């Protein structure tokens, strides 16, 4: 089949799932099965695209021209393909998990929940394949709008407040800063296409480069660069499948993905490296990495701790872009996939613990490991991958980032990455250690059993995925090479 058809189908299937969820609102089993089939088909489409395009770059697929020389258009390239694979591949797994979680927890409004969830996936795939900044912005905002009902899902005062913060930060930054940056870029260059080597090279100079980069970096609120990270902990009021897929994978990765795209295809790493315009961003990212890790240690609520861990890990990818070296970009790209699998495992485990025991605070989880061995084992593997230890996927991206930092001669960046690894150990491993090896005094295990199969199988699968990614790491690195040109960093 044609790449264009497959791209449309990859966006269409999640959209279709959204429609069927609303249409079959009274038949939960049919609804959920159809969604699962759509997830499989969407992933199949993306594998089909991979099969045809490989790590090459496809033709542009134009839908309609909106402004002079500005289209709604798609184009497949390795970075986007990787992101699309991650988002849609994990959708099916998360959907299984979500069925177990939503039913196990007696959550309400399932049709609306799954409909918005599917639209969010469609938006994420749209972001992944966007051929220019306008298309990307369109899907970026669609993603914000479609995930808002998911955050507000519970409908209580806390959820409404969390959703307000979520919306205020994400819409606020994108409308005020990102849109300004995009239109500014357009008036400077007359185009917004993602072009190898960037479109701004030769069009801007001097102080404008770092200012414009700042508008982008802070405008992409989804990348959760401090101080615009507050929305992510706020979003944790959402049901856990949302936190798992959207706020560890689709939404946040859409943010850092956009960040990489802007760095590579709008500015071009040469422009950034030559002007040194991104050096300040490296400092901000390093600050974000360290501070968020420290904040994570102080949180006892497991989901909040994971949220701050995500803020910190997203900083890695922004850092990779800010380094403006080939290895930095590759490491950032790789980290999109590696962190996605690790973090989704952690979130799904947190949700499984909640379904089985209704516990949300880490201090209450002492000793649970004995009765929930699968969940805690998966959590342990995910945690080690986030920390970046071999033989798990996370070690590759961290290694690539450190090499990238060394290429750029930024000792501070290397130091930040190392320090953050230690902090990762400090906030992730105690959860496993307390759960698996300590015995609690008040015996919380009474009456507790492993979470339902639908809830503990998916994290087990993604944990195995973390392991598999270690062995595929070199392959992925080769796959991403064309993003920065052919030579090796």
């Amino acid at each position, binding site marked *: 089949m044609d790449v264009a058809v497959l791209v449309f189908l990859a966006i269409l299937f999640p959209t279709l799932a959204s429609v069927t969820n609303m249409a079959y609102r009274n038949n939960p089993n049919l609804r959920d099965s159809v969604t699962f089939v759509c997830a499989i088909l969407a992933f199949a489409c993306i594998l089909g695209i991979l099969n045809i395009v490989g790590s090459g770059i496809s033709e542009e697929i134009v839908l309609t021209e*909106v*402004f002079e020389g500005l289209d709604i258009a798609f184009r497949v390239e390795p970075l986007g393909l990787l992101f699309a694979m991650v988002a849609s591949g994990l959708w099916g797994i998360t959907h299984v998990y979500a069925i177990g979680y939503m039913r196990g927890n007696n959550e309400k409004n399932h049709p609306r929940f799954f409909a918005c969830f599917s639209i969010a996936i469609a938006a994420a795939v749209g972001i992944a394949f966007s051929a220019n900044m306008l298309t990307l912005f*369109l899907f970026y*905002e669609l993603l914000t709008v479609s995930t808002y009902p998911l955050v507000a899902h519970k409908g209580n005062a806390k959820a409404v407040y969390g959703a*307000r913060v979520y*919306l205020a930060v994400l*819409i606020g930054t994108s409308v005020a800063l990102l849109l300004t940056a995009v239109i*500014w870029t357009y008036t400077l260059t007359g185009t917004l296409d993602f072009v190898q080597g960037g479109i701004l090279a030769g069009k801007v100079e001097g102080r404008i480069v770092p200012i414009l980069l700042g508008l982008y970096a802070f405008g992409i609120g989804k990348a959760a660069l401090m101080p615009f990270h507050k929305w992510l902990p706020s979003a944790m009021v959402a049901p856990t499948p949302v936190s798992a897929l959207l706020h560890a994978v689709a939404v946040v990765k859409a943010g850092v993905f956009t960040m990489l795209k802007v760095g590579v295809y709008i500015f071009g790493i040469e422009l950034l490296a030559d002007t040194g315009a991104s050096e300040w961003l490296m400092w901000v990212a390093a600050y974000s990495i360290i501070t968020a890790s420290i904040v994570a240690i102080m949180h006892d609520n497991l989901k909040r701790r994971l949220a701050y861990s995500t803020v910190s890990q997203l900083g890695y990818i922004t850092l990779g872009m800010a380094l403006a070296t080939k290895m930095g970009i590759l490491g950032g790209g790789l980290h999109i996939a590696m962190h996605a699998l690790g973090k989704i495992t952690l979130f799904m485990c947190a949700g499984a613990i909640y379904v089985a025991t209704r516990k949300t605070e880490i201090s209450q989880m002492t000793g649970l490991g004995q009765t929930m061995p699968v969940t805690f084992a998966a959590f342990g593997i995910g945690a080690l991958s986030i920390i970046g230890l071999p033989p798990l996927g996370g070690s590759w991206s961290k290694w690539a980032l450190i090499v990238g930092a060394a290429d750029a001669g930024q000792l501070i960046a290397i130091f930040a990455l190392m320090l953050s690894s230690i902090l990762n150990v400090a906030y992730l491993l105690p959860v496993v250690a307390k759960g698996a090896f300590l015995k609690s005094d008040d015996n919380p295990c009474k009456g507790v059993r492993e979470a339902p199969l639908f809830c503990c199988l998916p994290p087990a699968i993604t944990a195995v995925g973390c392991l598999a990614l270690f062995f595929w790491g070199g392959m992925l690195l080769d796959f991403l090479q064309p993003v920065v040109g052919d030579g090796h960093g």
Partner: protein
Amino acid sequence: MAGGTEAVAHQALEMTDHLPVLQVLIPFIAAPLAVFLGVRSLAWPIACAGAIASLVCSVVLMLATLDGSFISYHLGGWAPPYGIEYRVDAANAFVLLLISATAVVVMPFTKASVDAEIPKKDHTLFYACFMLCITGLLGVVVTGDAFNVFVFLEISSLSAYVLVSQGSHRDRRALTVAYDYLLMGTIGATFFVIGIGFLYMATGTLNMADIADRIAGQGDNRTIQAAFAFILVGMGLKVAIYPLHLWLPGAYNYAPSAVTVLLAATATKAAIYVVLRFTFSVFQPEFTFDTNVLYWIIIPFALLAMFAASLIAVFQTNFKRMLAYSSIAQIGYMLLGIGFFNLSGLTATMVHLFNHSITKAALFMAVGALVLRSGSTFYDRIRGMGKSMPLTSAVVVIGGLSLIGIPGTAGFVSKWMLVQAAFELGWWWMALLIVASSLLAVIYVWRVLEVLYLGDTAEGAQHKEAPMMMAGPMWVAALACIWFGFDTSLTLEASRVAANGLLSGNAGMAPVPTTAAGGGH
């Protein structure tokens, strides 16, 4: 008229030649026809037929003027400047299209909401006034004669006062706001006619193109300056430029739903058009005065509207009132485009005229449906209606997103053009102000969405979806909001041609009109 075939061909030609006047005449005749026929059930079909026929006229006119040319029609065969000239170029064809298309789309909605809100005995007169209002608006836009503008303005305004007062069947306060509207509108009209008087004094003519010819290069003439000031302030009242907006929230709030839709979608837009026409085609600031006049007068008021009115909208607890203040804020965007005085800016104004019109039409129709079911527009009475009225609430979502300017909606296109215009002037701080004010829109829109979707269901409301007669038109408008967010070939193209025409100043008197017009009663 000898040969049969020749006669037919000749007549067909005449029909198209007469389009500019038919545009106005058809609804003008529909109004008394509905009354004099005396059959109540026929009033709405007649109004519908009139609206559709005038839509056809405006589509043909739009197509004829898209190439940048203009059509000059001499009313009664009297050549201008002595006779009245109707002059149609891309700018007013676009506004004509907007007004007549809105009239057609809201017609089914009007029927449903009039049946619910107005006693049966007044229906015939209501539709007559409705058509007169449309006649006036179309006339204001089509004419090329300054005094004629005033005449049509009064036709539309007087019928609008009556229409607003019809809200008194639901809430007696409609009478006082209609009275307010009458006073303010009349002051506005008086200022306007004084301005025209000054112009006549200075030039001895009332034809706009002729005036423009005669005042070119007379920028230091005090009479002309005073005329400009009077006209701008007078129209400012009609447009509801902040702080001349005081009549608007009340009138929108208490008028019958259908009237609010009509006024919000078309009346202020026609008034903006008059401001554009007088500023650019008649006074031509770059020849007559310094362009600084625009910068220093229009831009501050535009910014004031954008921020003050948006801020007021944020604190409203009544959906309809909130939308009214949002309209005032959005008028600020249109003024800002005028103030920029460049092609992109004027294009933004023209395109926002259109986009905001369909957005507000969708939203006010949704409000009308909510009123029908819940009996009120206050937030605490429409709480939780998202569940019982999913179709209507979805329209609020789409319209709201368009109001904010989220990509994929019509509102985004206008905002983009406006910000682009600011960057083209090198005013990056202005770009930031524009996006900052749209953040206020996020707040006031989201307040409503939270009320509709996240609130507990209010007591005492009927939990039923709106009837098809209402849901249909509002969805047409909502889908238009999405459609014109992607397909800008009509809106941006027409706006650009119109803006180009306006910026090139006066096209001059037309000794040889592009279309042979004239003759024939």
